[in-house]
């Protein structure tokens, strides 16, 4: 009998919790804005103007867009089966290798004309998306599904295992050193220059691919039948089965979507960075996973927000602090955000609490 009333009324809160809640809402926004605002004020008073900061923001946003696309895969998968798919970053790496391999097959060089280049890159992107999503679905089928009722640690360790396996596939494919690839889109070429604020080809590409993809994904998950099945499964898998939802298919589909996003991210990354490495996926994956947690793991918009925030922090830190301190700066931000908002910036209550 009590259960009914407990669920109905909001629990009264102690003043301390209210302060904490307010701080976590507005304090965090202030905290996130502190560094950019400080730099803006400093630059303005020293006569450098706002341009340097805006340039850092542009870079941050385009870097962040790539993290966001990778983070989507972590967050969707975690949202539905509460598993950190450790192999996701390495799967992304295979996407970058696929794209590079196809540059050769399709004969794409810096000399290729614009029309051929667009068509060729589109093929590369579709191929990378196909490879990453197939790999992702296969990994789930082989290494996670059989362990769905096993202790939590079991699928975690098979995920780590697949991470290493994919890295080794990468080494077998293109060796263990970093290598440069043709700068097909002249990624550093300044396309737009508004009073010193420079937007480069690579920035435009990253944003032009990420924004429509994320919007499409959000609409799809919000509206489509299978999108609704994904949300229902994430919230209560057993109830979802009672609704007639095929939970296995729904989970496979989630891995497919995450793979598609990773494949798209892989092609942008390859064109943007023009340096590839078998280990780059592990690093990128760690950053993207951090972005997903920062934004609120399980929350699509949160993953995007987290990606953008990390991209901006990285670029500001690289430029104004020192590149060697950047990881520490990023994680300092993460820790502060987590302490005041454990569910992440846009994260909702957990399944247990919901």
């Amino acid at each position, binding site marked *: 009998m009590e259960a009914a009333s407990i*669920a109905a009324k909001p629990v009264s809160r102690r003043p301390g919790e209210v302060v904490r809640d307010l701080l976590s809402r507005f304090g965090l926004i202030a905290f996130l804005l502190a560094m950019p605002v400080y730099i803006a004020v400093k630059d303005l008073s020293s006569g450098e103007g706002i341009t340097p900061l805006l340039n850092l923001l542009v870079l941050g946003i385009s870097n962040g867009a790539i993290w966001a696309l990778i983070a989507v895969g972590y967050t969707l998968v975690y949202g539905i089966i509460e598993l950190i798919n450790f192999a996701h970053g390495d799967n992304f790496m295979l996407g970058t290798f696929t794209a590079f391999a196809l540059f050769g097959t399709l004969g794409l060089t810096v000399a290729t004309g614009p029309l051929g280049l667009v068509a060729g890159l589109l093929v590369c992107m579709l191929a990378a998306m196909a490879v990453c999503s197939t790999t992702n679905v296969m990994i789930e089928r082989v290494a996670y599904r059989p362990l769905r009722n096993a202790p939590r640690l079991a699928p975690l360790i098979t995920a780590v295992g697949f991470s290493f396996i994919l890295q080794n596939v990468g080494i077998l494919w293109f060796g263990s050193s970093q290598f440069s690839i043709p700068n097909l889109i002249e990624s550093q070429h300044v396309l737009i220059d508004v009073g010193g604020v420079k937007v480069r080809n690579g920035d435009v590409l990253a944003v032009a691919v990420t924004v429509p993809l994320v919007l499409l994904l959000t609409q799809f998950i919000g509206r489509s039948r299978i999108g609704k099945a994904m949300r*229902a499964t994430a919230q209560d898998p057993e109830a979802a089965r009672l609704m007639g939802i095929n939970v296995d298919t729904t989970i496979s589909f989630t891995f497919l979507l995450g793979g598609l996003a990773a494949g798209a991210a892989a092609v942008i990354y390859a064109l943007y960075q023009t340096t590839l490495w078998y280990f780059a996926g592990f690093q990128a994956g760690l950053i993207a996973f951090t972005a997903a947690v920062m934004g609120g793991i399980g929350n699509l918009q949160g993953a995007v927000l987290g990606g953008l925030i990390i991209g901006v922090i990285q670029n500001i830190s690289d430029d104004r602090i020192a590149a060697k301190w950047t990881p520490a700066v990023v994680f300092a931000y993460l820790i502060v955000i987590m302490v005041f908002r454990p569910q992440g910036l846009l994260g909702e209550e957990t399944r247990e609490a*919901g």
Partner: protein
Amino acid sequence: MALLEVDDIHTYYGNIEALKGVSLTVEEGEIVTLIGSNGAGKSTTLRSISGLTPPREGSIRFDGDDIAGVAPQDIVRKGISQAPEGRHVFPRLTVRENLDMGAYLRRDDHSEDMERVYDLFPRLKERERQKAGTMSGGEQQMLAIGRALMAQPKLLLLDEPSMGIAPILVDRIYETIKQINQQGTTILLVEQSAHHALDASQRGYVLATGQVALADDSDALRQNEDVRKAYLGA
């Protein structure tokens, strides 16, 4: 032939045998209840029928087909839906979206069924756009039953619809359960608190440690000395 015939099913959780040969039948149009103390195997019986925990031995025939071992979604498709113990509404979906999920397998327009559910539970209509997780236990129970109805089941499984709900709401919910049955849906009803269940049903089974201990008309069960002591608090 009965609508549902459960014949000597044995269901396990790992190595634990939760059902040790349960048999029961439900005729079309009936309300049949399954009572028993905590841990007797009531929920496991319903979970076995729904395909969540398929029995390792025995058979379950529904509407002429053997459904033991059939996937849960195919069992829903055949016409069995369940409002599970503890309600299990989707907390971050709205009331309306929850009802939509109940009709997940149906490709036709289900707006009429939604109206029917809203007629049965006017409270749900008022809360249409509210997130299900923010509602009271009683309202969530109404939603869980309404959601199960959206599948247009021939057989509705209800697991402890009175659990954790204010007594006045329990009366209301039981009125509606009878109404649903009068509108033509066969019901298999699980309860730990047997008063309401025996009132609403025509026949009942008493489950104890994974086996059927008693089976009789509900009136007879209500008079039964053991049942009165164990389940009616008399």
